[in-house]
């Protein structure tokens, strides 16, 4: 009988050295079925979308860069940026208030967050648009004196103002919870170390707590940003000519409803994809503290033998 060694199989099984043979992944039957089914569905959809004349792709193409649409897009971008910026600032203030050890301050922030997270943003938008029914005149001044000024609420709460106020106040409530969550992720030992160095409350916040809370706040804020971009479509109910409302204005005239909704959707999609890039960059930046390479590694001047404890 032949002694069965590893070497002997080399000669019996083709010419390839068995040590160099690739190892192949096992594919289940389900995988093949999934490929076939999904491909069929994909092809079917593609054929339907490209052959159905009602999609009117030429109309979609024509309106993609139509001036009204682009102006609407600009307004959508403005509303997103402005309400996110203001909402984050207000949210930060609310988060700091909510973490306060002074009861009334924490309770005020808590009540705000409950109220604005607990009601639909669409209702809030319509409410701010109609707030002049509640307070016809907004007067700013020092109580019990004549100093001050009154503003006509109806004029102040133009659709865009109402949209901005509504989105900002709503966003602030969500951002406050995100930021507070980030704060509580910072270890107790960090705060004690800062305390033992004699750091003041605001110094601790700026130099120790916020920088360390960032890695958990940033990705969530990115999601909020993308969500906000789509949420702005709600303000179309106030008659603000943002992206969706601009599309609606056109199809109200031309009855090309679906093509214009596709135009708006494509723009929302493009912007969402563009926004996810800076988000991943920011995430990288804030994960630096745990990266393995020293920052400015080249600037290190070695005056003594490295790290030798005497």
């Amino acid at each position: 009988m032949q002694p069965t060694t590893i070497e002997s199989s080399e000669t019996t099984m083709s010419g390839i050295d068995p040590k160099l043979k690739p190892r192949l992944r096992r594919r289940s039957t389900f995988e093949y079925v999934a490929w076939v089914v999904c491909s069929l569905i994909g092809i079917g959809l593609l054929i339907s979308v490209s052959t159905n004349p009602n999609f009117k792709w030429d109309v979609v193409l024509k309106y993609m860069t139509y001036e009204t649409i682009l102006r609407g897009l600009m307004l959508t971008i403005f509303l997103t940026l402005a309400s996110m910026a203001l909402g984050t600032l207000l949210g930060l203030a609310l988060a700091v208030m909510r973490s306060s050890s002074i009861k009334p301050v924490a309770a005020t922030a808590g009540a705000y967050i409950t109220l604005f997270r607990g009601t639909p943003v669409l209702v809030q938008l319509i409410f701010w648009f109609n707030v002049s029914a509640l307070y016809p005149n907004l007067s700013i001044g020092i109580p019990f004196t004549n100093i001050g000024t009154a503003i006509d609420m109806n004029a102040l709460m133009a659709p865009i103002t109402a949209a901005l106020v509504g989105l900002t106040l709503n966003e602030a409530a969500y951002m406050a919870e995100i930021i507070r969550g980030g704060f509580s992720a910072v270890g107790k030992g960090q705060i004690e170390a800062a305390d033992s160095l004699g750091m003041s409350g605001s110094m601790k916040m700026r130099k120790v707590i916020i920088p360390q809370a960032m890695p958990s706040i940033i990705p969530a804020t990115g999601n909020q940003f993308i969500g906000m971009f789509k949420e702005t479509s709600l303000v179309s109910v106030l008659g603000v000519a943002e992206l969706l409302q601009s599309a609606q204005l056109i199809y109200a005239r031309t009855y090309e409803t679906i093509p214009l909704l596709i135009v708006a959707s494509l723009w929302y999609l493009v912007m969402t994809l563009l926004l996810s890039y800076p988000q991943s960059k920011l995430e990288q930046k804030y994960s630096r503290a745990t990266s393995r390479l020293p920052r400015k590694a080249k600037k290190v001047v070695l005056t003594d033998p490295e790290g030798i404890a005497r």
Partner: protein
Amino acid sequence: MSNDGTIHARAIRKSFGPKTVLKDIDLDIASGEICCIIGPSGSGKSTVLRCINGLEAVDSGVLKVNGEDFGYYETDTAYHALSPKKLAEQRTRVGMVFQQFNLFPNMTALENVMAGPVLVKGADKKASAKRAHELLASVGLAGFGDYYPAQLSGGQQQRVAIARSLAMDPEIMLFDEPTSALDPEKVGEVLMVMQDLAKKGMTMVVVTHEMGFAREVADTLIFMDDGYVVERGDAREVLRNPKEPRTQAFLEKVI
């Protein structure tokens, strides 16, 4: 008024909820004294340290650090809490080294050491950086300034933490089990730095399980159990010849 690194405590009491962790603690630590506190876990030794640094407020009793009432000012009828600003000022004169190092992970080693002088005392950045480099060199970490804490070993992190506390020029240094979270082979490098510090005349209070350090470096030793100071005395004397049965039982187990 003396501000030369003394700690005096009389009848300090501290409770967390229903649990009393410190029961009438008296302490007298002279300037330049190296005092080790030993005892089983839960005996209140870390709490004593945290009270001296103001991380915990004592419930009652007299606590004078650097010759001043710590965290409070005395009137005829009561002790009133100091403003956060004044408390912070007192804290800058007491350095604290933690078991878990607690370096700021968002700052490099150099920035950690500079944090106190620059952010709290408003010192000049350049001068502070120079001083920080010197301090890092003095703990054997020259050239490690640009590393983040995550890139350093436990022993290196703890040495940075010591340098960070020293940067504030404190009169007193407190060590809360500084080597308990370290690999056994990294313990020596931290103890060596502490020994150097002791030679320079710093007042040090060290909560530790390192009996060797206590024997070689400490002047006095305090044994705590269940919130009481059970025994105190000359470090070598207590370790060699403990008087209280509770101390004897404890030392038998750890040595």
